[in-house]
């Protein structure tokens, strides 16, 4: 549970390499961990973006967006996490899908990496599309490129790649050629919804990786429930990957706002802590 390396990747993106022999040995692409920063802390899920069996480490990359992730970002190399459990969730179903498009947005690009690598190893031909608000937030392009035959980048402000959304190149690609075996997308909910809406019209199988609010991560609390094709599923044990055409994104977006007022309250606490 010891953080052995910390790296500042971009604006508010931080990378930790954490010691954990057993998780490193067992984790598969798409699986996640749940950690606590301190005894009073929340349990938050984060995708495992890399493992090193020899060094007995796992890697996480997270965006400091809320109270707990900001608190996490204040830990340094050598610090201990209060708790760390994993690997949780089902692994991404990896096989040779033929031609695959992987789409990543923001911190989701980091989460895309292990899956892209596994698809490549399984024989898929990968086209990748990376998106971000601005150039700095399109992270790890070199690493993703390593597994890709083709890569497209979009930014909101046009500071890198084309100005626009990931769905712009995606639309062009699938309009030209419908023989894609899979589109795999991980990023903010509106992006995953937009990608799913687009591919639905072309009937291309689409997997999205959801990051619901969780507590135990073993199917016990049901806090992470999501409606899939009209049926309630638990992201922690039935996911985190689901068929994007079946996800009720509107409901999920509302559910992710459950604790917004608490979050504001907690942020005041963080400001006080930092002042001290």
């Amino acid at each position, binding site marked *: 549970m010891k953080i052995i390396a910390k790296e500042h990747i971009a604006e508010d993106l931080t990378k930790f390499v954490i010691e954990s022999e*057993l*998780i490193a040995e*067992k984790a598969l692409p798409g699986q996640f961990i749940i950690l*606590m920063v301190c005894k*009073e*802390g*929340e*349990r938050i899920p984060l995708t495992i973006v890399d493992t090193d069996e020899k060094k007995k480490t796992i890697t996480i990359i997270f965006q400091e967006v809320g*109270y*707990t992730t900001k*608190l996490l970002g204040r830990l340094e190399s050598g610090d201990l996490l*209060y*708790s*760390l*459990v*994993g*690997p*949780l969730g089902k692994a991404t179903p990896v096989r040779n899908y033929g031609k695959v498009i992987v789409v990543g947005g923001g911190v989701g690009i980091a989460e895309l990496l292990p899956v892209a690598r596994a698809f490549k190893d399984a024989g898929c031909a990968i086209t990748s599309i990376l998106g971000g608000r601005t150039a700095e937030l399109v992270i790890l392009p070199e690493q993703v490129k390593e597994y890709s035959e083709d890569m497209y980048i979009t930014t909101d402000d046009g500071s890198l790649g084309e100005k626009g959304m990931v769905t712009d190149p995606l639309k062009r690609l699938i309009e030209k050629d419908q023989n894609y075996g899979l589109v795999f997308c991980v990023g903010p909910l509106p992006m995953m919804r937009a990608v799913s809406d687009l591919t639905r019209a072309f009937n291309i199988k689409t997997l999205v990786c959801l990051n619901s609010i969780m*507590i*135990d991560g*073993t*199917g*016990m*609390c*049901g*806090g992470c*429930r*999501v*409606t899939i094709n009209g049926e*309630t599923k638990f992201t922690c*044990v039935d996911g985190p990957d689901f068929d994007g055409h079946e996800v009720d994104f*509107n*409901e999920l977006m*509302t*559910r992710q*706002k*459950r*604790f917004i007022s*608490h*979050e504001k*309250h*907690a942020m005041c*606490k963080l400001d006080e802590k930092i002042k001290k």
Partner: protein
Amino acid sequence: MAKVNQKQVPMREQSYAERIKNFKEVPCGYSEEEAVLEAKRCLQCKNPLCAQGCPVGIDIPGFIDLIAKEDFRGSIRKMKEKNSLPAICGRVCPQEDQCQKVCVLAKRKEPIAIGRLERFIADWEARQGDIEIPSKKPPTGKKIACVGSGPAGLTVAGESAKLGHNVTILEALHELGGVLTYGIPEFRLPNSIVQREVEYISSLGVKIMTSFVVSKLKTVDELLEEFDAVFIATGAGLPWFMSIPGENYNGVYSANEYLTRTNLMRAYQFPKYDTPIIKGKQAAVIGGGNVAMDSVRTALRLGAEKTMIIYRRSKTEMPARLEEIHHAEEEGVIFEFLTLPVAYHPDEKGWLKEMECIRMELGEPDASGRRRPIPIEGSNFRIPVDVVVVAIGNSPNPLLPSLTPDLKLGKKGNIVIDQNSGKTSKKGVFAGGDIATGAATVISAMGAGKIAAWAIDEYLKTGEW
């Protein structure tokens, strides 16, 4: 023979006006004088029926007699011969349905308050500050893994350690205790009491690993390479929902989530603790069992102005302990009997606003022997609510069984075991508690743990399956 007092020595409680504002325990426990007075009411029957009703076989007249003689140390020793977790059992066991129900005194007077005395003697020992470690059998060199640290897992760990085995508990959460920690609220079973009992188990030499999800981090087969026997006690952790429209609106919780946020994660102390919970003003809890009572009383303590129990049958059919129903009534909970939710309605932002219900009437008895509730057509009505807790039951947690293909499962997803040994279909693997029975009581899980501990011991000695 001196005339036996008809009534139990009452236990002091926090007044309900006071207690609904805090999460402290409601009953205060007996003083030494009160305990001795109550213990002296025991007739010391030659053939005590009470002990026969105890799943873990406590020598009930024996420990009570020692209290009556003011030999408290002797009494706790007697207790711990059979029960490693008396402070927990004394608080949450349904004594009124077991030992106290068959007490000879119960026929004409009030039965002996066995649970209160059990609690007293456990708390007495803790107050002395020197909890005795019982003698252990010589080390056998055999290794046992207990998967889960709820009442069944803790019992097997404690008993097996006393039998000289080398025991490791593997717990998925970051704290021990299972449902005792995440489920049962502080005001009914303080976490410090659970941690005290856990410390006792660990003082017997049991190793503890938290944040260890068996099946994900190591499979049962991998455990069997390392351990001579595996005991699975992963509990009934899959919450049921009703599959009615709107069940995923913000404000609708499973009882597991509601209680876990509050108890395990201490959301009632937000923002001192970081985990939030939506504190409703008008909270409705669906269900009639102990978990429903725990949830509704939690809602009250979190500050709800109106708290309701919504139950589809009538009061007579409620499975909750009488004491819990009584406490909830005293605290001002409103009971809507013969009422079934059929849908939830949101506000414009997707947050829960109203619960639509239908009234029921009771028909013929069903398979459970209770009269079946039948909906009254057209009786729909709406109740304004901002928090709903669904407390209608749990199934055995499917995570470990689904990843252990050669474990035979029952229709409800439970692990099939031999009732007399806890043996599963897989050699070297035992199971017990809610994962085998579906949701039941703490004491029945402990009873199953005892049976399994003896059977594991036998298996480790003989190697016979």
